[in-house]
C-alpha cells in the first residue's frame, strides 16, 4: 500500500514538473499580458523614488528641519528632476507608439 502511494506520488510529481516546465513553450505567442518594457519600468521606479523624495522634503519642512529658503530651493530642484523623468517617459511613449505604427 505504501509502495503504491509512493509510486503515485512520484508519478504526480513528475507530471507536475513536466507540465510546469513545458508551459512556457506551449504558450508561445500567447503572452496575454505583455509586460511593460524594462526601460519604462526603470523610469517609473525613478519617478516613484523622486516623488518619495519630494514628499520627504515636504515632511522635513513641515517638521521644522528645513528653512523656508532651503525648502523652496530643494523643492524646485527636485520637481525639476521629476519633470526630466516625466519628459523621458513621454519620449519613450512617443518612441514606442512610432515603432508600433
Amino acid at each position, binding site marked *: 500500500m*505504501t*509502495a503504491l*502511494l*509512493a*509510486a503515485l*506520488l*512520484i508519478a504526480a*510529481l*513528475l507530471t*507536475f*514538473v513536466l507540465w*510546469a*516546465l*513545458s*508551459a*512556457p*513553450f506551449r*504558450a*508561445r505567442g500567447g*503572452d496575454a*499580458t505583455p*509586460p*511593460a518594457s*524594462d526601460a519604462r*519600468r*526603470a523610469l*517609473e*521606479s*525613478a519617478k*516613484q*523614488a523622486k*516623488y*518619495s*523624495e*519630494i*514628499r*520627504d*522634503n515636504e*515632511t*522635513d519642512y*513641515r*517638521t*521644522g*528641519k*528645513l*528653512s523656508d529658503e*532651503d525648502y523652496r530651493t*530643494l523643492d524646485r530642484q527636485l*520637481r*525639476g528632476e*521629476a*519633470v526630466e523623468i*516625466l519628459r523621458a517617459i513621454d519620449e519613450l511613449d512617443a518612441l514606442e507608439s512610432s515603432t508600433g505604427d
Partner: protein
Amino acid sequence: MAFAGRVALVLALAVSLYGITAALYGARRGRRDWVDSGRHSIYCLAAILTVAMVILEVAFIRNDFSYNTVANTSSTTTPLLYRAAAMWSSQEGSLLLWVWLLSVWASVATFITRNRLRDIVPYASSVLLGFGAFFTTLLVFFDSPFNQTHPAPTNGAGLDPLLRNPSMLIHPPMLYSGYTFFTIPFAFAVGALVVRRVDADWIRVTRRFALASWLFLGIGIVLGARWSYYELGWGGYWGWDPVENAALMPWLISTAFLHSVMIQEKRGMLKIWNASLVLGASTLAIVGTFLVRSGVLNSIHAFGASTLGIPFVALIAAMTGGSIYLVVSRREVLRSEHTLDSLFSREAAFLLNNVVLVGLCFVIFWGTFFPLISKAVTGTSAAVGPPWFDRYTVPLALILVLLSGIGPAIAWRRATLANARRNFLLPLGAAAAMAVGAYTVVPIGSSPGVVLLFCAAMFVFASVGQEFWRGWRARRATSRDSPPQALLSMVRRNRRRYGGYIVHVGIAVLFIGVAASATFEHEQTLSLQVGQSARVGAYTMKYMRATGSVVTDPNNTGATMTLGAVLRVTRGGHYVGTLRPSAGYYPASPIVPGLVVASLISGDAVDQIGLQSSWRRDLWAAIKPLGTTLAANGTQLPEESLVNRADGLIPTSESGVDQLKLAYYLLRAIVGHYVAYPPAASFTLIASPLVMWIWVGGLIVFLGGLTAIWPAPSGVRDRVRARYLARVGRELGRA
C-alpha cells in the same frame, strides 16, 4: 515513502540544474520561453521540496525509526510538538529546511518580479537555482534525510533536551528564513551587475527583500537570545557565541545597507558600497549557515559534527571571489552620480552609521574567527571571551544608539545651524535630564557607561517623539482627521519613514535592557539545604521544599524524572513571589539490561529555570540536585545509591516491558524519598533589572520593521500619485 523522498531530492537537483541552463540559455538567446521555463523551475523546486518535507515530517510524527534522522533525533517519549520540530535539530533535516525555505522565498520573489527586471531575472533565477542545486547536492550525495536502517530500532535517541523549548519551534525557521531571504538580494545584485543595470527599479526590488531578510533574521536572533536565557541555565541571553555572532553579522550589514540604499535611491551615490554590502551580507549569511553546522568553531549551538566543511568553504570562496570580480569589473556602472552636499545632513549621518555598523561587524568577525586566525599564525588556537567583545562593541553600540536619534532630527541634503538648534533642543534636554536623574533619583551614577547609554536612549525617544508630534500636527493642519486617525494616516502615508523611527525606538529600548541587566545584575551560585536562604541583591530567596515527579514532566518536555525546588522570595521581609526551578532527567538510549532504572534517567539533564519576570526586574533561579557524577556522561545523578539498589531489585528474567514497569515504580519511590528527605542542592540565583525590556525592544523593532515593509494600499498610492502628478504637471506648466 523514504524512496519517494529520495526520488524527490534527485528530482529537485535535476530541476535546479535544468532551470539554471534554461534561464541562462534564454538570456543569451533572448528567448523568453526558456527564461520563463527556468523561472518555473523555481516553483517546481518549491513543490518537490514541500513533498520531501511532508514525507519527513510524517515520519517524525509517526515515530518511524527506520529513518536514521528520526531515530537519531526523536523518540516515543519526545512530545508531539517537539517531534514535529525535531527535523531541524539534525544536519540533514536542517539542510532540507534551508533549501525548502530558499525555494519558497525564491518562488515568491520570482513571481513578484515575473513582469519586471526582465534582463536581470534570468541571472537572478540561475543564482537562486544554483543555491538550490548546491544544497540538494549535499542532500543527495553527502547527507540524505531519507537514509534508512532495517530492521528499524524500537525507539530513538530522543531530541536533545536543550532544544525542547517553545522558542526552538520557531527560532530555526525564522533564522533560516533570514539567511535564505538574503540569497534573493544577492541573486538580484549578481544579475544587475552581470547586465550592468543598477537603476531605481533594481533598488525597489532589492530593498524590499533585504528588509524582509533583516526582519526575519532579527526575529530569529531575539528568539535565540530568549532560548539561551530560558534554557541554558547560565542566566544570560548573549554570550558572543560563534553561532550567535554568525547571525548578528549579516544583520548588521543589512542594517547598514537599508540605510545607505536610501542615499543611492535619492542621490545616485554609494553604488559600489551598496552592491558590496548586499553581496557581503549574503555571503555572511552562508558563513552563518556553515558555522551552525560545521563545528569548525566551538559553539553551544553546534548540535553535531559536520562532514560538509569543504563544500561550504568552496561555496563561500566562490561567492566572495565572484562578488569581488563583479564589483571591480562593473566599477564604471557603479560610479556615483552626485557628491555629498553637506557634512551636516541625514546622508552624512547615514554614512557614519554605516561606518559604525561595518566596524562593529568587523570586530565581531575578528573575535569570532580569532581561534582559526591564531591557529593559522601561531599554531595554537586561542579564543577571545565576552570581555574582549564588550571592550569594542559597547562604545560602538553607544554611538549607534546616539545616531539613531540624530538621523530623524536632521534633513536630507543640508541642515542649517538654526534648524539644528531647534530640533536638537528637546532631545538634548531629555538626555541632560536623564543624566541629572541618574545621579539623583535613579541610583545608577556609579556606572558611567550605563548613564551614557540611558542618556543616548532618552535622546532617541525625545527625537523620535518630536518627529511623531510634529508630523501629527502637520497632518492635523492639512486634514480633517480625528487625532488618532491623523496619527494612523501619517504613518500609513509614509510607512518607511515612521516604521524606521519605530525601529530606532525599539533598538534604544533593547539597549536599555541590555545595559541595565548586564551592569546591575546580582548573581549567587551556592549550595542550599531546605530551610536555608540566600541573599541576592535586595532579595532573599529561601529554599522551602523539594519537588519531584516521574514521567509527568510539568514543563512537558518529555523528561523521565523531574527534581526541583520551591523558593520563596522576599524583599525587606515582604513576600515578592515564588520560584520553581527544576532539573529534567532524560532517558539514555538504548536501555542497558540490568541498569534499567539508571538508564531511564542517565541521558541528558537539563535545567528548567524558575522565573518571575516584571517590567522592573527578573528573578531567575536554576537548580542542580547534587549527587555523584556518573562516569558515563558526566550527569550529576542524585540518589545514586538508591538507583543502584533499585536496579538490583529488578529480576532480569522478567520481560522487557515488565522490567520497565517495575523500573518506573521504583523510580517513583526514589523520587518520593528525594522529596521527603531532600539532600543539599546547588542553586544559581539571579536578580537582574529591566531584562523584560530586551524582549519588549525586540517586539517594537519587529513592529517597526513590519510597518516599513507593509505595502502601501493601492488606493492611497494611487491618490498620492495622482496628487503629485498634478503638482508636477503644474510645475511643468510654469516651466
